[in-house]
């Protein structure tokens, strides 16, 4: 593994092209094309199965997972997963396995984008593991180190309705205090009854890198302190390297509290806010100014600033990726504190685009390393 500017993915890829086009004549051709490119062992078997229509849903998903793993490996990443090929959507994948969480229906996030939202109607408990089988499969196939993404408790709470905890609070507390207490109780129950059992199972099964995804974390800034305490409770005694991924957020809201978080790595989105011109000036690298806060607050954890934008098909030149990494190292005053990754999962990009973005990530990190090795 690279010592400086380790490269890793963040989580999702779009569905494997052969799975997306299942039932059409192109499906088998996609399996063949990507199988060759990614050097997926036995891809001819998948090709034949798709051509003859003799493939089960379970087999299809296993193949998609394998292709996802090889996708990252072929691009040259140091730390990989399977592109979350088994998951419908990050929230629903977990909440649908939680007792006393009832999915009520689809609600808007923006424009016509939606998600299926659940109501918490009692004390939540993990009904079945959401990530264990998936991790075991990846672990058995991966040739590189593995990092498993897990949806965090704050996002589960914030994206769900609460029909239970609020009712347990006395009306005399007043509306704001009732809500504060209800959310605190719910968050800790999610930590204790849902996430910790999942994390413990993963660690027991050999997971050594776990990414907690919390896109909702800065939604209510006055709850960041609460989350930091809950997070520390969540990872207590678990022997793994934890990454916290927060994207498309006002990161200033995390400070000063996250300096006290018992986390090893922060993964944040920066490329989306940056210019597309190479260079190391503050003006060119404005997307990375948030890193100053990490230094000002003496955050010891490593930082994985996104150096490729996952919401555009623009392929960043390796020199741009390099400069973003070098600038991050400069702001943190320590290249060893910087990890190279994307802003977020590449789910919204076609595989062709996503693969190119992975390759430039690896090339850019290599160029950045050269600046420190002198070669």
């Amino acid at each position, binding site marked *: 593994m690279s010592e400086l500017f380790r490269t890793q993915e963040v989580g999702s890829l779009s569905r494997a092209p052969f799975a997306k086009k299942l039932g059409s004549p192109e499906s088998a051709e996609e399996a063949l094309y990507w199988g060759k490119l990614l050097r997926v062992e036995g891809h001819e078997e998948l090709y034949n199965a798709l051509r003859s229509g003799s493939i089960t849903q379970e087999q299809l998903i296993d193949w998609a997972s394998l292709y996802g793993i090889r996708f990252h490996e072929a691009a040259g990443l140091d730390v990989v997963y399977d592109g979350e090929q088994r998951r419908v959507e990050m929230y629903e994948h977990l909440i649908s396995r939680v007792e006393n969480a009832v999915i*009520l229906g*689809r609600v808007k996030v*923006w*424009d016509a984008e939606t998600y299926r939202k659940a109501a918490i109607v009692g004390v939540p408990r993990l009904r079945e593991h959401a990530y264990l089988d998936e991790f075991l499969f990846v672990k058995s196939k991966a040739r590189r180190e593995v990092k498993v993404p897990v949806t965090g408790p704050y996002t589960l709470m914030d994206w769900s309705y609460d029909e239970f905890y609020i*009712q347990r609070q006395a009306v005399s507390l007043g*509306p704001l205090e009732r809500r504060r207490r209800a959310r605190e109780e719910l968050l800790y129950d999610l930590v204790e009854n849902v996430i910790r059992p999942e994390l413990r199972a993963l660690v027991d099964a050999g997971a050594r890198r776990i990414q907690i995804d919390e896109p909702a974390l800065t*939604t209510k800034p006055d709850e960041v302190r609460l989350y930091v305490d809950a997070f520390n409770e969540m990872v207590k005694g678990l022997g793994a390297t934890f990454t916290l991924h927060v994207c498309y957020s006002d990161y200033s809201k995390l400070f000063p509290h996250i300096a006290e978080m018992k986390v090893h790595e922060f993964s944040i989105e920066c490329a989306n806010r940056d210019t597309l011109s190479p260079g190391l000036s503050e003006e060119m690298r404005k997307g990375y100014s948030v890193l100053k806060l990490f230094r000002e607050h003496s955050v010891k954890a490593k930082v994985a600033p996104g150096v490729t934008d996952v919401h555009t098909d623009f392929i960043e030149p390796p020199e741009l990726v390099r400069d973003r990494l070098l600038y991050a190292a400069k702001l943190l005053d320590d290249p060893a504190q910087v990890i190279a990754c994307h802003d977020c999962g590449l789910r919204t990009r076609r595989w062709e685009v996503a693969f190119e973005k992975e390759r430039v990530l690896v090339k850019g990190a290599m160029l950045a390393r050269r600046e420190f090795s002198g070669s």
Partner: protein
Amino acid sequence: MRNAVHELIPDGRRENGDGVFRTVKLHGKKDMTELVVHVSGALPRSEELFALLRRHARGRATWEDVRGAAREESSGWVRFQKELGFDLIADPMLLWHDHFRPFAERWSGVEVNGLARWFDNNVFYRVPVFKGRPGSRGGVLRDYLFPEQLVGCRVKLILPEPFTMVALSERRVEVDPGELAVEVARLLAFEVRQFVRETGVSVEMVQLSAPYVVSRRLGDREAEAVSESVRALREGTGTRVLLHTFFYPLSNASDWIADSGADVVGFDATVTSAEEVLSTGLRGEIAVGIVDSRSSRVERPDEVMGLLGRLVEAGFSRIHLTTTTDLDYVPPQVARAKLEALREIRAAYSGRRR
């Protein structure tokens, strides 16, 4: 003692005597209180309509396809409000992606940009960008609502509060935000006038959705800009204005809200207590966001009687029972139950006071 003075008339409509609202009137401590009911924002789209909108965004469905499906759904929501006996009927705004979009897309001098979080929700809006002074040829409301369904109804139009819109926008034009807000107010008033003239819809009230004005304590100049915008809307439309606040406590506006010039001020009862409302100095008429639009739990009348009782005792002459905000934070079946809850709350309160 019989406090409700409405009479059932032969076609099933209720008349209250003042010719403005079909209401339930109640005797409070000092005076008679009227309860009126309406929804305060967009209603949810069906899964099918979401899917059609996504197909349209990918170029696989026409805007006419979308309008056709939305028209049908909209009709169902309008009918449902009527069945529930709501005093004011609102278009469910199914074509509105967010509070600002129709205006940001159609007005000259304004464009839409990237996504930004809508206050403390897992909901995002596209940021309007003022590239110049805004202008309009009108027709926005006609094109984004379904006026034919509202003809013959007493209608409440729901619009963005101008200062909220400006504050949440990007400004690439050299202009004071307060001044720009008043310009926006005048344009909105123009849109309303044209809508009424072209469609024959009877607009009884304009609601300005104003979360920003309570999201923090505004400075004097900002508060004055809100008030001036309210006045511009009021004078420009000749219509009563409801300044509806939500998500944050009304107490954040306690020093100016009573002088805002709005005919009615609305507050979010999930974050504001009766005492906070009373401390603002507001009297006369008030709108209570009593049904929580962001929760799936359906309110029981007995849970809100205490709050209503306090407001009646305080002598408010008219209380508007409404949702905290748009109901598209919940799926359609929950939204229906929430609208029914508004009816039940009114019925329970009027029954209790008899």
